[in-house]
């Protein structure tokens, strides 16, 4: 994985927006995890039956 050098001004602006960046990235992460939980793990039968082939394809534990 390659690295890129960052200037001090970039670093300063990053720390300013750091908190907001953390919240926004965290929210996007939660969004992704919740969708995956619904597709792959919800135990209700309609969720299981609707997403059955997807669960098998991704090797989510099923049945």
């Amino acid at each position, binding site marked *: *994985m*390659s*690295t*890129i*050098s*960052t200037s001090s001004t970039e670093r300063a*602006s*990053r720390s300013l*927006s750091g908190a*907001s*960046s953390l919240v*926004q*990235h965290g*929210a*996007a*992460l939660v*969004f*992704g*995890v*919740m*969708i*995956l939980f*619904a*597709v*792959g*793990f919800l*135990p*209700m*039968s*309609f969720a*299981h*039956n*609707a*997403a*059955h*082939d*997807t*669960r*098998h*394809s*991704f*090797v*989510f*534990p*099923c*049945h």
Partner: protein
Amino acid sequence: MFRSLIFSACLIGVVLGLTLTAIQSFGVTPILLSAEQFEVAEQPDANHHAGESTDAHHHEHGAQTAHHHDEPAAPGHHEVSEAHEAGGHHHDANAWSPADGAERVLFTALSNVLAGIGFAAILLVLMNVLRERGLLKPTPLTGLTFGIAGFLAIFVAPSIGLPPEIPGMNAAALESRQYWWLFTVVAAAVGLGFLFLAPRWRKLFGLPFLVVPYLWIPAHPAGPRFANTDPAAVSALTELHQQFIWASGLSNLAFWLLAGILCALAVKRLSGKSYGHADAPA
């Protein structure tokens, strides 16, 4: 930023989900449908699904295949559907399920798109955080690397302990496998993160994360591998299972490589934007 991430994830998820649906139609879906021909209801004397709680496990393929398929039934099929009618198992035959054919494909495509959106959102967040910290330059090549890491963490790592399964296989309790799956995937992702990103000897911190999940794997119940114990069915299912491991492996690899490239391109585009707008809050 949040809005851009979610928008990109949705767009990428639609592309990924539809691509996966197309790839599945060649390998995964025909195998699943063939395996369902052999699905049986639970025998009272078998230790099939031992310890599995009934509310966590409802599906009606056994019932559905017993009544809907016109093809000659597998040997042993009839006795089994009689066992089902006698209430010998806990599959919820009244639960809604998409009808085989267009409806089932439609719901599978929809679930694939949702899974694509979910995985893309996580990949985009990881890549963008690493980019912001100067640890990642989003290019198609780093995207491919991420795709391979995703394939290793989400498909290969759990499959080492719990190989891909076709319908009608006996397995350990669903919940313990789900917890193990989650733990293994997270541990593998952390382990690979160390291996790829940590400097020099600190890469070694990744090894325990890659090994620990296999110290305990939810054991398969003793006894037959498949719920249908007819010898002809077992040999057909064994063959289907081998094919399924390859089919699901290859379709997952294609999914993850495409996911990695698309997410890298999206992060590159986002980074171009954020320099212009100073990361305006969404």
